[in-house]
């Protein structure tokens, strides 16, 4: 097939105009999981849309997220056995922080994106580490950078920022770009870090369960 055939064929599905970002109660997707989710969970499904041509997005009730995600993983018709990514989005302006689960079913060869809207005064959601072990560090990252607490996470510590970071959660829209402290204070705090405590030999054990490290240091919490 020649290089110009793609031009002749016209736009690919992903070039189609994007639908609204907020989803709709009526449902726009013909993704088989969406209909199944609506039939099974009803009101807990807050909306769905198709994003960027072929990415189905479903908004669910965060209070029932664990139940829904467990079903999505275990139901023979769904079998979303791979958690590709857990991440967060803060749109700013007092709007809710969203936790995004990007999943893939290696059985049915389908991808699905689940999103949960968390109001800023209740940034907590059930951890899915019990379902997908790979979500462990991803949830730690969301906790570190957005301040979302994952209930039931075995080792909820900061992962990217220093353990004793006290300026808050940097990817939140209300976080100033250069941090909350002066550069001098940031430098002083950085050099005062106890390196041995955070880079101990236990951290370097290959294949070691990171959960075992949890008891050593409490997650440093602080909005600055």
């Amino acid at each position, binding site marked *: 097939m020649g290089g110009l055939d793609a031009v002749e064929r016209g736009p690919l599905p992903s070039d189609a105009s994007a639908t609204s970002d907020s989803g709709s109660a009526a449902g726009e997707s013909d993704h088989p999981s969406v209909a199944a989710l609506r039939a099974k969970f009803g009101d807990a499904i807050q909306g769905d849309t198709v994003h960027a041509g072929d990415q189905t997005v479903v908004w669910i009730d965060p209070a029932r997220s664990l139940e829904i995600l467990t079903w999505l993983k275990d139901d023979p018709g769904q079998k979303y056995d791979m958690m590709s990514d857990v991440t967060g989005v803060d749109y700013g302006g007092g709007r809710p922080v969203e936790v995004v689960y990007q999943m893939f079913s290696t059985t049915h060869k389908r991808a699905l994106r689940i999103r949960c809207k968390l109001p800023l005064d209740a940034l907590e959601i059930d951890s899915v580490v019990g379902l997908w072990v790979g979500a462990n560090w991803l949830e730690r990252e969301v906790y570190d950078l957005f301040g979302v607490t994952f209930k039931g996470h075995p080792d909820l510590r900061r992962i990217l920022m220093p353990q004793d970071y006290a300026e808050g959660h940097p990817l939140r829209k209300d976080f100033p770009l*250069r941090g909350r402290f002066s550069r001098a*204070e940031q430098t002083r705090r950085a050099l005062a870090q106890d390196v041995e405590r955070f880079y101990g030999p236990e951290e370097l054990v290959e294949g070691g369960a990171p959960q075992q490290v949890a008891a050593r240091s409490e997650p440093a919490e602080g909005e600055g």
Partner: protein
Amino acid sequence: MGLGDLLPGGGTQKSEGGLGMFGAGSPTFLTTKIDEVINWGRRNSLWPMPFGTACCAIEMMAAAASNFDLARFGMERMSFSPRQADVLICAGRVPYKLAPVLRRIWDQMPQPKWCVSMGACASSGGVFDVYSMVQGIDTIVPVDVYVPGCPPRPEGLIYGLMMIQEKIRQESLGRHFEHRAEDPALVAAPRADEEEIVGLTGPFGNSTHQEKLADGRIVRSPDPNDDVPV
């Protein structure tokens, strides 16, 4: 057969100044200043401690590889252990989380030691004028040579190391402690005081003047009126 027989001119000629003063009537003696010998040895056997954290490290590797061959200048061996290193090459951006590690490596290096800050990020923070990034490693360790570039080409790094060699050439053993003095109180502490760090790392271009309030006071702790979490 003496050493002088193997040397150009049979070792009987008197040359002028610096190394290679063979004379005093005997071909088997070499007379020079002890400074010259020691500095000659030091500057031609610099072992770099590579602290490569980003794309600058790729150029540093290129400088060490065969095309540019840092070994021609005595950097025969990249010393991945600070205890056996003479010159710290900080190549790349350094986040605050890594700052104590860099400082620990510098403190572990034995004197005499030198430091090259390679590239824009190591020298000034570069484009990363953000919450997580050290704004120039000179707030953490003393820097001898800054190599500009993003990243610098291997020639740039080699030129920077040749400047280190030139610096060593001008050092004097008599002023060793002056050149090499270390304040024990500065171990694991910032190199500069608060005003100086704010001055060094101050906002460029259209960055916000976040550290200094209108009255010139430095913001030490979060300002309650600024960006209150919703």
